[in-house]
């Protein structure tokens, strides 16, 4: 009966495709994700037993959802271009490195250089991020519910880094045009990074980021804005001490 077949097909399209990494090698998961096309109807994926595996769901370029049940190692969701990844655990170094678009949410903590060099998309860390968060970011938006470590947003070029907690030493060292919003205290600012006035357009931008990251009960007005003093854009011998 055609009607029954159709309803069965619809059911299958809504079910998650489950990969248990205790049973199936990581490369098969990533190959299956890379084989997705705009016409694929497998839009929900679930990854079990990551147990700190590296490179889980890197390079996905289709708008699917991927739920990773556990903690991951290096580079989870690296180069992500459109998928919505949720890590139900913590992430090792380089989560979302060079993300292009889409979103990654880490329910736990993130290790070093979360969102490094990211060009777009939204990275949400619901716990703390450690050192070098957003290093060399180039357009990504990063929202950290907890604290971030030292040397975060080093040489950050564009995009927004929002921190609900505190920031470690040398925040925004040698920063270009990225915007940094910190609600707690900043241990120290890096070379050429300064506190800046929070104008209405910044409050609107920040409120939009908080909304997109699902942050409630926190007002944009509670944050301070930091950015570039723009004195290190071109090499000037008189600034040599600042580098």
């Amino acid at each position, binding site marked *: 009966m055609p009607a029954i077949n159709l309803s069965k097909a619809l059911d299958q399209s809504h079910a998650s495709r489950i990969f248990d990494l205790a049973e199936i090698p990581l490369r098969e998961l990533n190959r299956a994700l890379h084989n997705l096309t705009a016409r694929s109807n497998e839009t929900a994926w679930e990854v079990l037993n990551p*147990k*700190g*595996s590296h490179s889980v769901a890197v390079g996905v370029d289709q708008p699917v959802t991927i739920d990773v049940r556990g*903690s991951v*190692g*290096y580079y989870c969701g690296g180069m992500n271009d459109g998928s919505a990844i949720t890590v139900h655990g*913590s992430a*090792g*170094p380089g989560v979302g490195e060079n993300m292009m678009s889409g979103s990654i949410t880490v329910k736990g*903590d993130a*290790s*070093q250089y979360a969102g490094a060099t990211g060009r777009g998309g939204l990275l949400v860390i619901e716990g703390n991020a*450690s*050192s070098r968060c957003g290093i060399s970011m180039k357009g990504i938006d990063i929202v950290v519910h907890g604290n971030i*470590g*030292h040397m975060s947003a080093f040489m950050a070029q564009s995009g927004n880094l929002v921190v609900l907690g505190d920031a470690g030493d040398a925040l925004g060292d040698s920063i270009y045009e990225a915007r940094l919003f910190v609600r707690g205290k900043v241990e120290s600012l890096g070379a050429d990074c300064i506190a800046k006035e929070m104008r209405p357009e910044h409050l609107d931008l920040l409120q939009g980021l908080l909304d997109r990251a699902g942050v409630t009960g926190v007002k944009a007005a509670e944050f301070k804005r930091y950015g570039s003093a723009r004195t290190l854009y071109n090499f000037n011998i008189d600034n040599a001490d600042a580098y």
Partner: protein
Amino acid sequence: MCGIVGLFLKDKSLEPQLGSMLSEMLISLSDRGPDSAGIAIYGSPSGNEAKITIQSAKPEHDFRNLDAELARAIGTPVNIAVKSTHAVVRTTPDKIDEVRETIQALRPEIRIMGAGDVVEIYKEVGLPEAVVNRFDVRSMTGTHGIGHTRMATESAVTTMGAHPFSTGADQCLVHNGSLSNHNNVRRELIREGMKFETENDTEVAAAYLSSQMAHGKNLGQALEGTLSDLDGFFTFVVGTKNGFGVVRDPIACKPAVMAETDQYVAFGSEYRALAKLPGIDNATVWEPEPATVYFWEH
């Protein structure tokens, strides 16, 4: 790269499993360093006994009749348990220096891996799994231990260049990173009377800690000193007779993750090393802060 692990048991019921737990932790990090691997196990104290772990490239030759020759030379029986290229020499604590000197006189080719009341150290060129199997590490029991799998950067791939390095009784250290002022620090320590077996930077860090503790500092204070006196990249994991410590340099490039439960404190270069520990899902898991000393003692 390099991979390092450490496990400090709080729950005595886990002691029979120390060797197998630490072995699995180290094997899980094999792809961080394929050159050589090593492990130090702190066994349960067994009263009036001290141990020296020795190593030989020609064990059939060097270990043959060594127990009888040692007993004749020092006048008391000596027990030797051979494990592949290594052997553990057991004697009484008051005889340990004499036994050590006698071994070196009788068999100049033998290398001393470490000595103390409880520590045994096994290290060789090869992957962690091969090293663990060669020395039957899984069957070993104890209170705490540390391990290392090496990707060599500072000195040759040899047994003596493998970690852990031991430079004092029951003291040893594993290192991920590289030191840049080790030649200077080595010269200063040699002037103090410390002896070195290799050109390796990590041996200098181990000797630095031994020297600090010989001057009366505790493990925590000695580790604090590395932050001002050693230059370079480092995550150190250190064992003493009853203690276990961790410190990272202020830049903290080298990865580190720790887990603590009521049963243990564990260290791994990556979470993979901790993922199979009992109760890990409910453990406190955190990344140790840069330039911050962590240590535990029994």
